[in-house]
């Protein structure tokens, strides 16, 4: 059972929730840039949240299904010939046409049973800098054939059969993606970074007073922010330290960079802030040109925000499981 890529769109890769436990040897976890949308897409087709799905970025693909397949597209609002954020049973031979993202930047196309590429170090995520994981460790191309699980047709039909409130080949409800911003600039909560106090007062203010624009050279490794240049009061040498998803570094050119899914695990640039983990997935829903505003907060607030988004996700996952009669 397969799915064929007729037109690849932009930067389409296979992603799950990443490979953990290897950061001490320099390998970041990687995985879906928006793990919340990826988890929902999987739940919508009856999968566990961590199955491998296709990550679409800004411009979607055309795909052809070999057999009947239960799919769900969740995340950014892409123009597509299937309804978003809900399970859809597509007939063999269907051509799935996905265009531009009208709102948000990334969405996940999940299929019943998941994309059946070989796991590498416990994950099917594509790690582009290392060239492994996913399909050949690379972005998908025209003509690629994605393996689905052996019994994906029977699995798809059986799962669709279990759904309660159906309408034609889909359902009468949907699961909103939770991370796609309603308006911009998107407010990102940040903790002061290790080197925040070493920035000059004007830069400290500018960091939280400005509206920052995501630069064109942003990718799965990091997002660059265009705005005022930030400078340190003293440009003393910094020992390389560990970094994290959402760390905001400021290299000597003064342009802040937020570390995203495929980030380096250590770094020698001063760290001005750490984005609250609750807000990183929302940042991932912005493409180049998107705008953000940094709001400094305490660790307690960041923890509370994370608890809130995890609860909201859990509620949605339980609701979807109920529709499947679980």
């Amino acid at each position, binding site marked *: 059972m397969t799915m064929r890529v007729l037109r690849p769109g932009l930067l389409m890769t296979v992603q799950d929730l990443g490979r953990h436990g*290897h950061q*001490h040897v320099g*390998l970041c976890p990687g995985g879906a840039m928006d793990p919340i949308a990826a988890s929902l897409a999987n739940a919508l087709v009856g999968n566990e949240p961590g199955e491998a799905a296709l990550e679409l970025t800004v411009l979607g693909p055309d795909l052809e299904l070999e057999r009947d397949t239960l799919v769900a597209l969740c995340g950014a609002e892409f123009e597509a010939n299937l309804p978003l954020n809900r399970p859809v049973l597509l007939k063999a031979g269907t051509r799935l046409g996905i265009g531009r993202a009208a709102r948000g930047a990334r969405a996940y196309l999940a299929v019943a049973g998941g994309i059946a590429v070989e796991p590498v*170090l416990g994950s099917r995520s594509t790690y582009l800098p290392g060239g492994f994981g996913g399909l050949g460790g690379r972005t998908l191309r025209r003509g690629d054939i994605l393996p689905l699980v052996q019994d994906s047709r029977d699995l798809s039909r059986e799962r669709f059969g279990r759904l309660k409130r159906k309408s034609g080949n889909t359902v009468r409800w949907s699961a909103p993606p939770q991370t796609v911003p309603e308006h911009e600039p998107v407010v990102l909560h940040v903790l002061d970074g290790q080197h925040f106090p070493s920035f000059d007062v004007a830069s400290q203010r500018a960091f939280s007073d400005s509206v920052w624009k995501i630069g064109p050279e942003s990718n799965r490794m990091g997002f660059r922010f265009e705005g005022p240049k930030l400078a340190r009061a003293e440009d003393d040498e910094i020992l*390389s330290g560990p970094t994290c998803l959402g760390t905001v570094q400021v290299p000597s050119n003064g342009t802040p960079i937020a570390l995203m899914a495929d980030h380096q695990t250590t770094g020698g640039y001063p760290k001005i802030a750490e984005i609250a983990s609750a807000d990183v997935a929302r940042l991932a829903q912005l493409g180049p040109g998107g705008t953000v505003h940094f709001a400094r907060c305490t660790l307690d607030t960041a923890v509370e925000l994370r608890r809130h988004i995890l609860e909201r996700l859990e509620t949605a996952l339980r609701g979807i499981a109920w529709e499947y009669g679980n």
Partner: protein
Amino acid sequence: MQRLALAVYARKEPELRDVVPALGGLALHFHPQFTGDLVQFALSVVQRALEDGLPPPAEVGREVEVPVCYAAKFAPDLAEVARRLKLEPEEVVRRHAAGEYRVLMIGFAPGHAYMGGLHPSLALSRRATPRPEVPAGSVAIANEQTVVYPYAISGGWNVIGRTPLVIFDAAREEPSLFGPGDRVRFRAITEEEFLK
């Protein structure tokens, strides 16, 4: 830092997904489902690790021997390095291969180990202009450290040799040749040995 990282890692706390030592700090990466007090947990883990006792330095890391061919075709910067240090190229090689190194930190790319212990007489700054691509396995020096490039990437370190070993292979059981705190020795090999 390496000893503390190892002691924390050895506790195998299920709440922690990654324990990452670096020169300027130690990172504890929590499982996102963790709902307790982060700071309290981190402090108590470190405290318990300290109470249990840190492993002696000699027990941190493994012994890793890296064969290196220092022939000119693999060492584009060796002649210039020798000129800048006012040494013969053979002497640069001898001192580099005689050293015992410690992996101080891994970062920049998977398996990319920053190793301390370079003979102070070999310390010099990075190249003014980084090379657009340094081949995988290249052995390079800068300041008082040495590195081995795991992938063909751009880099500004002074390349003085190359190893035939694969530094990072995701398909291996232990993907990275180097781990934090490893003790590393370089062994000079001939071009024939390199090609084998």
